[in-house]
């Protein structure tokens, strides 16, 4: 039995090790320390799935029911899997943008890593909130310290929007505490699960708005284009692959355990909003000439679809939404990593300035195809399962909403246009000498593709770990 606290130990030790390295001026590369820490966590996670996990509980203050308690609930595992595995595969991309303060970068990276893992494991809402805030603060610094020139404004917008959502979440948590007298998920669930009142509906609405900001979903997504675009490649990958799931996770906690009845009242309006958001994002992605922008809005599209699935009030839709979130959590890092590679090689991510890359850098083209096919839902890749389940769930809820499937057509449109622009036809680029993917890049892309394909072929790995009834 692996105690859940062990999952964050390597990360914490990693931060301490990094500090020591700085103090002793040792020559060990910071990234090695990070990799070791993350690898150890992954190993522990795997061991845990085999042998089982045990909970951890450390009470800090009884007065306000604050304790660090780690316990797995029915939906923790998929998110944990994403949070533990993905950052490790994203870190190598730091070489595109992080030229100085490497140590600080690794420290921030590990802090984000540990805080998000802790967040997904927390069964005490207050400590969950604290871990979330720590990760957001670190994200703020990560965005602006290594981003491009306008990164401060984008980081600021990110901070303010997510602060609003955090405050909403905090208010909701406090209201729940007032209602039930506890921050502990298990006790709350028992109390509120079958309860139905305006009070609880207000709580749910607060969380809903917060999630809309965090995913992001139209119309509260204004922070996203700047934050995704101006950040360093690895940070954008983290934002889109990991941070966007936080809102969904908290929303799920409320839908499944805390306020299921209230949540069902909101299903219809939210679904309509999600459909609008999906089409909105798809059309904007279609109009974008920059690859990174296109991927950013594409990410928003899939998150809207995931929201649709989550709110569909049936198990298939919810499982589908979760699956789609996790699946895209691996696809988008791959996508952004490729844009980072492109920029490092050609100096631009503008699709009108490069073309015919298949000729010069076929390996890049191969993985670009994988990203495209995986995203549009070609079977064999994980997104297909997610999309299929989401649309099925949505249809069961209200048939007409299936119209959202047309957004997939638009997605095919812009993805194929991207392929045509930069992969096919004659080669041209600002820089003539292009190197194909290097070894470290290759390891990243192969690993990510591997996960995407395995999830696509054997979805039960993830689906069996989701247990919608267990708190």
């Amino acid at each position, binding site marked *: 039995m692996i105690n859940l606290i062990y999952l964050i130990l390597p990360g914490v030790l990693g931060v301490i090790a990094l500090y020591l390295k700085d103090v002793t001026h040792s020559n060990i590369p910071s990234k090695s320390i990070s990799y070791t820490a993350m690898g150890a966590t992954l190993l522990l996670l795997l061991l845990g799935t085999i042998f089982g996990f045990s909970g951890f509980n450390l009470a800090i*203050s009884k*007065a306000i029911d*604050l304790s660090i308690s780690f316990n797995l609930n029915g939906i923790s595992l998929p998110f944990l899997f994403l949070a533990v595995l993905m950052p490790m595969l994203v870190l190598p991309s730091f070489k595109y943008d992080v030229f100085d303060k490497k140590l600080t970068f690794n420290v921030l990276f590990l802090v984000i890593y540990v805080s998000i893992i802790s967040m997904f494991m927390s069964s005490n809402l207050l400590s969950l909130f604290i871990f979330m805030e720590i990760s957001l*603060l670190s994200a703020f610094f990560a965005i*602006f*310290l290594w981003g491009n020139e306008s990164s401060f404004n984008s980081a*600021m917008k990110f901070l*303010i929007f997510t602060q609003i959502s955090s*405050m909403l979440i905090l208010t909701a948590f406090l209201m729940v505490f007032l209602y039930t007298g506890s921050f502990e998920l298990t006790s709350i669930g028992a109390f509120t699960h079958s309860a139905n009142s305006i009070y609880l509906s207000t709580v749910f609405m607060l969380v809903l708005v917060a999630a809309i900001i965090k995913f992001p979903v139209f119309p509260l997504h204004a922070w996203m284009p700047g934050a995704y675009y101006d950040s360093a490649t690895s940070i954008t990958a983290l934002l889109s692959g990991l941070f966007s799931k936080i809102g969904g996770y908290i929303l799920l906690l409320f839908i499944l355990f805390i306020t299921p009845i209230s949540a069902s009242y909101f299903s219809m309006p939210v679904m309509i909003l999600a459909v609008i958001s999906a089409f909105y994002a798809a059309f904007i992605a279609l109009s974008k000439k920059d690859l990174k922008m296109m991927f950013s809005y594409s990410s928003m599209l899939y998150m809207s679809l995931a929201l649709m699935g989550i709110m569909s009030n049936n198990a298939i839709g919810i499982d589908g939404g979760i699956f789609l979130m996790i699946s895209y959590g691996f696809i988008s890092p791959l996508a952004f990593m490729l844009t980072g590679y492109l920029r490092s090689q050609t100096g631009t991510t503008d699709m009108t300035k490069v073309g015919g890359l298949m000729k010069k850098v076929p390996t890049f083209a191969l993985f670009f195809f994988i990203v495209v096919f995986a995203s549009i839902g070609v079977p064999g890749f994980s997104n297909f399962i997610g999309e299929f389940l989401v649309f099925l769930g949505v249809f069961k809820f209200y048939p007409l909403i299936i119209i959202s499937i047309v957004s997939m057509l638009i997605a095919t449109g812009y993805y194929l246009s991207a392929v045509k622009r930069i992969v096919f036809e004659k080669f041209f680029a600002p820089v003539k000498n292009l190197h194909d993917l290097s070894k470290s890049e290759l390891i990243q892309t192969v690993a990510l593709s591997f996960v995407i394909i395995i999830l696509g072929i054997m979805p039960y790995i993830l689906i069996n770990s989701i247990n919608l009834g267990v708190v």
Partner: protein
Amino acid sequence: MINAQYILIVGALLVPLVDLLRRELNVKATKIINYLTLSILLLSFIFEVLFGNIQSTLFNSVDYSYFINSFILLLSTLIFSFMLLHFEKLDTYIDVFFIITVLGATLMVISSNFLSLIISLEMMSIPSYALVLIVKDKKHLEGTFKYLFISMLSIAFLVFGSSLIFLSSGSLSFSSLSTVNYLLFLPGIAIVLAGIAYEATLVPFHSWAPDTYDAADSTVTAFLSSVPKAAGLIVIVHIFTYAFPLAEEFMLVTLMILAMATIIVPSIIAISQSKLKRMLIYSSIAQSGFAFVGVSLLSTISVYSAVFYVFAFATADALVFLSLSMLESRGVYLISDLGKAKNLGMVPVLGLSLGLLSLAGFPPTIGFFGKLLIFMSLIFQGYVWVVIVLIAVLLFSTFYYYNVFRNMYRRKYFLTKFVPIKSDIRWALKEAIIIILMAIVFAGVALISAA
């Protein structure tokens, strides 16, 4: 049962005597006196921790007074040691005044009678005028004068208000406040509030603060914005818990309006400040507003949350201003200077950052927990709209706090790794103090239980 106050009184008498002796013996080193003072402060802290309880007619320790007094004494010790390190030469009378101010502050916290309140308030504020004037130049004089004037005005109010209360309740003791004749009592209490509020920098009684805090040396600002403010707020808590054991709706509205004004107005002004110190001052003023929210709710939870919040922001303010002092010696005055100046030193920068994070309310600093408790008490009493307004202001303030970060961590100057300043014992010791404060800010969560 030796209480801290006895030690301080003894110290207040002892130090001038020793100094007199020194002068007679023509010993030049004033450092002795400084160290003597320091040890007195330290001793008093220790004794407070050990024997914190006083029960008498004039002074009455409540459960949180022990906590606050220990904290005040610790903070004073730290700030004083910092001052020693900072100033080349500290006049000996400053030492005495410092002791008296601290004594006044601790007495204020445990006052249970209007008479003791007035005396301790005077004891606390009069010497502090001199503290502002450590450096004798025109700017400091202006600050001192404004402080002096408003202070005089306030104390007059306080005395007058107390007399009204005496008229209405027949006693000067706090405990008799619950049985009163309202008509006389209300104006009385309002005037009393006006009288104390200046020290706690509540709007609209705060106008002296930006100028005075700005004029004073940053170390003194650190002291002024933490200890007297804390004492002022605590004593208001004290008065109101006695005066209104049952939370009265109308009182609440009035106090809440005051609190909101205190939070909102300085926060707005702070955004456009380009001088770092002034921005921090405005944020500090806003912080008292937050604590005051807890006071205005007048429930058990909110009182404790107010107390904890006072602890939180006082520590953070001290941390921030002390770090600022170190940064100023490196030439940082404007916020943009943070980006330009080189070799700032890792510790002050981190200290400032951590302090700002605490003021902004980010976990896991005590500032976050303070705000959390305040929010909790608000929600428990159903004042959700207030929460919303507070959140909006918080977001406002996020901007100016993080603006500092932007300048601090601007890429170019982070590149030059913080070269440790050539061994300067004083600098290193100052850093140590800052580190202690940082630790409190970070790990003070545990003290929630104490509150």
